[in-house]
């Protein structure tokens, strides 16, 4: 926190009190709360980041955990107690194999274009698959790629991280090994690449991308 704030504030609440505040705010919210939101809600001069670290230690090993989701924080029940929550369990729509694979490719290769997803899977991505993942708010549009045609890219969202209990996309299981094995690279395409779907349906793929951009 900046010096000005500390001095300009009347009295900064003690850390003990700040912890209570962070706890109450986290508890009350179903969605992860960002540091910025904490700062906006708490009295001036508070240090929610430090309070969160303290609180996280306090909840260590309890039935409820403090977890970090991207640049936000949330309270979640301990995963080993899931068996107690049969009533709360949300029956989620089963994702198709294509959707699951597409999601994994986006998570591990992000930012990734539709053509790249198709290259990896060896089939064209149906519009519905991307739609479904967008609807679940597990993926969103990233920056356009600086390649000819400036295609849109996809990246995963904080909602994705929250759902799979990941602090950041860097914590994806096996990410390091995959990178070390060179499996997250596309390898410079040689002239004689096996035929992918893009060679067959180039127009269609291009339309799909521009359509997505329209949305």
């Amino acid at each position, binding site marked *: 926190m900046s010096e000005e704030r500390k001095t300009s504030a009347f009295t900064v609440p003690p850390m003990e009190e700040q912890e209570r505040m962070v706890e109450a705010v986290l508890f009350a919210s179903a969605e992860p709360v960002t540091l910025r939101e904490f700062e906006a809600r708490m009295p001036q001069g508070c240090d929610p980041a430090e309070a969160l670290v303290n609180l996280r230690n306090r909840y260590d090993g309890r039935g409820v955990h403090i977890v970090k989701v991207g640049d936000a924080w949330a309270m979640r029940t301990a995963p080993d107690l899931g068996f107690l929550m049969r009533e709360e369990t949300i029956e989620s729509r089963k994702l198709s194999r294509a959707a699951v694979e597409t999601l994994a490719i986006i*998570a591990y290769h992000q930012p990734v274009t539709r053509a790249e997803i198709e290259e990896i899977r060896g089939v064209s991505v149906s519009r519905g698959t991307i739609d479904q993942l967008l609807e679940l708010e597990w993926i969103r549009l990233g920056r356009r790629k600086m390649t000819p045609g400036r295609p849109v890219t996809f990246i995963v969202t904080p909602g994705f991280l929250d759902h799979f*209990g990941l602090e950041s996309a860097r914590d994806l299981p096996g990410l390091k090994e995959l990178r070390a094995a060179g499996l997250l690279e596309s390898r410079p395409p040689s002239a*004689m690449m*096996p035929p992918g779907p893009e060679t067959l349906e180039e127009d269609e793929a291009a339309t799909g991308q521009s359509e997505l951009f329209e949305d």
Partner: protein
Amino acid sequence: MMDTAQQPFQNEAISVADRMAAEALIVDVDGFEGPLDVLLTLSRTQKVDLLKVSVLQLAKQYLAFVEHAKALRLELAADYLVMAAWLAFLKSRLLLPPDPEDEGPSGADMAAHLAFQLERLQAMRDAAARLMARDQLGRDFFARGQTQNVARVRTTTYSATLLDLMQGYARIRTRDDFRPFVMDRDNVFTLEQALERMRPMIGFAGAWTDLTSYLPEGWDNDPVRRRSATAATFAASLELVKEGQAELRQSETFAPIHLRRKEARA
């Protein structure tokens, strides 16, 4: 590839195995997500590390699969056939001694790239499985069941951008002379109209006739209308000549153009 030396001895055995594999695949061809998926499944029958997979053997298995599908008159999607053609090409590259004159990637390079693609697809499938096996929100761990109502204090601010402002101004200042763009069709005689008019007439034009006599009635007084009708009629007569139904002639530059029916060759 490694297997090439052993090929003469194994040829028969592989082809029987391939045929059996192909048969197994064909039962469920709809269940496959494209040729790469089929190749990945086939590669599993080799029971080796994907990096050491014999691409040559894989190509043969795949080609057997496609042949078998054809024999059964199964409709295979185009991309399966494109892959088959590519693999046949790759197979010939792998079997023939490399041509030093030849440019482009060698058969080994192409095979290596295919092996890489298969390994990468398998890696993504494993990653997807591991991802879905993770503890998931709403299944294994849970968010607060009863979220507290957060009182919302709303303040409304109004915004407009410079662009809004400029467009607003432009809208007012140009309102009077704005007219939606529509083609003025009243004074245009189209090629289609001219053709429609001339087709039934040309059959009777045994003798050379001045083109202007074909102009539709009521189009020769106003210069704008006459110009359009003349152009369309001329274009239509060219069309008829092209179709072999009429002949055109002009004695000198700017002289009247004459038209007549083209006689069928005796």
